[in-house]
């Protein structure tokens, strides 16, 4: 400001400054009041929520006085109607609240469940149901309950995605395609306690099959009374397993309590298994475990280091599933050409993917569609029929690709669409492949991240060139993997069709001789490799940590996993 400014301007100026100062002070007060008000509101709300919600969320991970454990679920079970369930979470919960004719015990051996004994013949089977088997309303479990559930599963009106698993039973496939009424299914109750099954064709592993949750019984009267809501709520399911659902707040809370009507209730030591948290956030899960709010959590590559620094006792397991890159073999896709696929195979080293990118113990580099744990004739299938291996050979791959381009008369392969999941791990692996193929073969890959449902829909309609796919076993026999690439399998998303493979799948399905069947699987393994029908990536593993007071938890590749039915608490 100039010194000889007229006085009037000075006055205006100072008035302005005064105004600014007082206005600023007022604003400051308002801001302070607002902050204090907000803080008060937060305190009030947290107090209120504690007051209202104190009944559920405050239980510790291990509560020895109430014989209760708390755990986390990655999501709420999507489907608890056993005739419709397809996913791992539903399967795991069903494994705790339902029991089939047979079940897996703590050593993963097949033992009698609802059936006290059984007899499997070449053309059929008989199961004798134990007298003591009860539903959670006190009614006896009868053979008719199994007949009802199995008919329901293959009924086309029910549209179960797992109907195919019953196809070894007589007429199942014809019923499912609508050619026969569901009453023609080859299963009947000769009396209340005897179940007679007739086979469509000889089957070598029917005992393993009936341990699967689709084969669980459903009481017809209760099902009809539920009015189409069977499996939707805690009250609309009838339980025959070790536990029953006592509370199910959708999207928030699931609580299992010991089922007093369970025939082998003495075996069950826990009173309550509580699932107060549903989240896929592994960091949140780890924090809950650190706080002692849950008794068990899985670990991923990111938070593994934290767990190691805390010097916890870690455990690992292969969860049985196999992951692979599937090619689209449909007519209009460039990936149907073997030379391109072969070139893509020759530059990919699953060991690098597993040891350097995934970096988790428990994962095994993929070599075959058949995982290493499958049993063969005497020992392990993969020991008896070693998977063909390939060496990374970039010059040869480049030569093959150049040859392919020349044959096709193109200069550049159009961008390939890689369909993948929307979780961080799949994103990372997809980017790894993107860079790998760009650097070695100058192939452009576009990544299409989709949520699980959308990915499945796109896989089914064939909107992809490459897809990161995985398959978990449904029953303990190599066929659960072996028929994946048969031309008629709906899970063969790339529509791979090879009459030779189909022939060997038929052999494996129909033969009863272990050697013949394993030979067939060996042939399938070789054929799939030779034709590069897929690129095996890895066999998935899990690393996890459990509260040291929790004992008896069972992890397994086939069947409900993890299994807490035999778990118990040991106070140090």
């Amino acid at each position: 400001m100039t010194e000889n400014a007229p006085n009037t301007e000075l006055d205006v100026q100072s008035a302005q400054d005064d105004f600014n100062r007082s206005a600023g002070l007022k604003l400051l007060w308002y801001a302070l009041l607002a902050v204090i008000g907000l803080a008060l509101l937060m305190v009030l709300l947290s107090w209120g929520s504690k007051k209202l919600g104190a009944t559920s969320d405050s239980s510790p991970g291990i509560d020895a006085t109430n014989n209760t454990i708390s755990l986390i679920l990655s999501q709420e079970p999507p489907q608890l109607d056993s005739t419709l369930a397809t996913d791992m979470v539903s399967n795991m919960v069903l494994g705790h609240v339902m029991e089939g004719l047979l079940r897996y015990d703590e050593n993963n051996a097949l033992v009698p469940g609802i059936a006290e004994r059984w007899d499997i013949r070449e053309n059929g089977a008989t199961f004798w149901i134990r007298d003591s088997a009860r539903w959670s309303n006190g009614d006896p479990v009868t053979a008719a309950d199994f007949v009802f559930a199995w008919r329901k599963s293959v009924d086309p009106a029910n549209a179960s995605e797992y109907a195919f698993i019953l196809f070894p039973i007589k007429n199942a496939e014809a019923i499912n395609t609508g050619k026969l009424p569901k009453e023609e299914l080859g299963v009947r109750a000769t009396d209340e306690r005897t179940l007679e099954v007739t086979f469509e064709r000889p089957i070598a592993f029917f005992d393993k099959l009936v341990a699967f949750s689709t084969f669980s019984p459903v009481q017809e009267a209760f099902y009809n009374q539920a009015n189409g809501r069977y499996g939707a709520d805690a009250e609309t399911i009838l339980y025959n397993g070790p536990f029953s659902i006592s509370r199910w707040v959708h999207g928030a809370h699931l609580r299992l309590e010991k089922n007093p009507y369970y025939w082998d209730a003495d075996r069950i030591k826990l009173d309550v298994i509580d699932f107060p948290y549903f989240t896929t956030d592994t960091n949140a899960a780890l924090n809950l475990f650190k706080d002692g709010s849950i008794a068990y959590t899985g670990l991923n590559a990111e938070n593994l280091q934290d767990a190691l620094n805390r010097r916890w006792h870690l455990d690992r397991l292969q969860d049985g599933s196999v992951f692979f890159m599937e090619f689209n073999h449909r007519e209009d896709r460039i990936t149907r050409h073997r030379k391109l696929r072969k070139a893509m195979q020759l530059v990919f080293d699953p060991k690098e993917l597993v040891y350097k990118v995934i970096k988790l113990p428990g994962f095994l580099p993929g070599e075959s569609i058949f995982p290493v744990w499958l049993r063969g004739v005497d020992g392990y299938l993969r020991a008896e029929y070693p998977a063909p291996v390939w060496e990374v050979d970039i010059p040869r791959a480049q030569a093959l690709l150049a040859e392919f381009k020349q044959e096709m008369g193109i200069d550049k392969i159009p961008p390939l669409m890689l369909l993948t999941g929307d979780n961080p791990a799949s994103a990372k692996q997809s980017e790894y492949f993107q860079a790998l193929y760009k650097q070695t073969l100058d192939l452009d890959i576009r990544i299409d991240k989709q949520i699980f449902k959308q990915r499945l829909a796109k896989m089914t309609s064939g909107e992809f060139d490459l897809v990161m796919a995985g398959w978990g076993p449904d029953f303990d026999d190599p066929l659960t993997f072996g028929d994946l690439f048969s031309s008629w399998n709906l899970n063969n998303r790339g529509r791979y069709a090879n009459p030779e493979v189909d022939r060997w799948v038929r052999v494996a399905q129909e033969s009863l001789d272990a050697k013949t069947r394993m030979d067939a699987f060996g042939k399938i393994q070789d054929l799939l490799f030779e034709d590069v029908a897929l690129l095996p990536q890895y066999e998935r593993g899990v690393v996890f940590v459990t509260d040291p007071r929790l004992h008896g938890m069972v992890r397994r590749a086939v069947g409900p996993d993890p299994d807490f039915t035999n778990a118990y608490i040991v106070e140090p």
Partner: protein
Amino acid sequence: MSESTFSADDFKPLPKGAAAEVITRPSMSYWQDAWRRLKENRRAIISLWIIIGLLAFTLIGPYLWTVDHAKQNVDKISERPFTSTEAVLTTPLQPWDIGNRGTPSDPLALAEPATTQTARLVWQAMPGASAYRIYRNIFPYEPGAGLGLPLGETLLPKDTYFEDRLDLQAKTYYYSVVGLDSQLRETAQVVTLEVPVTRVITLTEATERGLLSQASDGKLGEKIHLGTHPFGTDYLGRDLLARLMEGARVSLFIGIVAPFLFVLVGVAYGSIAGFLGGASDQVLMRFADFVVALPFLLFMILFKIAFGIGPGESGVMPMLLALVLLSWPSTARLVRGQILQIREEGYINAAQLLGANTSYLVLRHMIPNTLGVILVTLTFAVPSAIFTEAFLSFIGMGVAPPTPSWGSMCNEGIKTMLTSPHELIFPALFISVTVLAFNLLGDGLRDALDSRMRSRE
């Protein structure tokens, strides 16, 4: 006032050359004055330099730091900034001839020195053990504490060997082998071994990465330097500095082009509305209000679909379009207000009386007088556009991999925040600094261009 008499001299014109008045200070145009005041604002000038530096970083940087931003190197995943590593040249890994491994004299021993390629363990069979479980730890063995990472199990009692290839780093590990009983439960039998691991690189790998000009240049057993990454590497071993430079392109492209375009649209729209006034002004401004109410994210998705941009393709163009089409009303409102005000000014009336036509009025008087406001809007629109881009890329709506952008890099970095924080910190820092610099510059410009401030000094 007293009466005076006029002489003829009073009506003579002044002689040519005589100064009518003396100008004591140099004459300054509006812009010169604004620039003078901006220069006095130190924050604004520092911000200006930062912005110039950023432009140089992204435009000139890639010519100085010629590392490919998409090149992955799985041996250098999540490396810290300025890590200097050396590796011993070696031959490619040969399969282990397990049959010839012999029996070690120690309870647990290495079959050969451990490298980052492989650590091969052999041990003496334990009495009663039907299988073994192998652990790898970063801490020395301590009874009661966890044994570390469970690497795997051998399934048969005779299998007393294990090959570890899982993400071996050049540090010291403590391996433990635990005997398992027939139920595969752990027994008390544990043997531990301290294993130092040396970093190795094969001749072919070294040549591929340009560390050796020819494979014959290196001798086996010789140490070579692996190259440094000033900002470290990301989760696939890609150079973070190169990715930041590349990412800056997307961020600054959106950040500068989008505001420029929508301010242009806004100025045209606002000045038309303001100049026409009356009913047409009402209609035009109600349409602008309508555009304000449209949700940005939804339109961005709609444009993406309308453009036929499939998955895996860059969403930058729809983002630009959505930004331009939905962000102009605020500028339009501001400019309209200014024009309405200026329209009533005396000099406009004077100019009109002197016969100025419309285009002269708009171009000579109105636009130059709103230019200050426009410029300030522009500088404030830039950081908000950069932020929008970062946010959209963060949630996966923007660029498609492998193209990086600061937002998508943050999204990737957040997953490894705890183990390698530099992957999040650097892109986040770049976003923050850029946004802050543009905001401070905008602040300075507003002060400098404000005509009311002009008379104060």
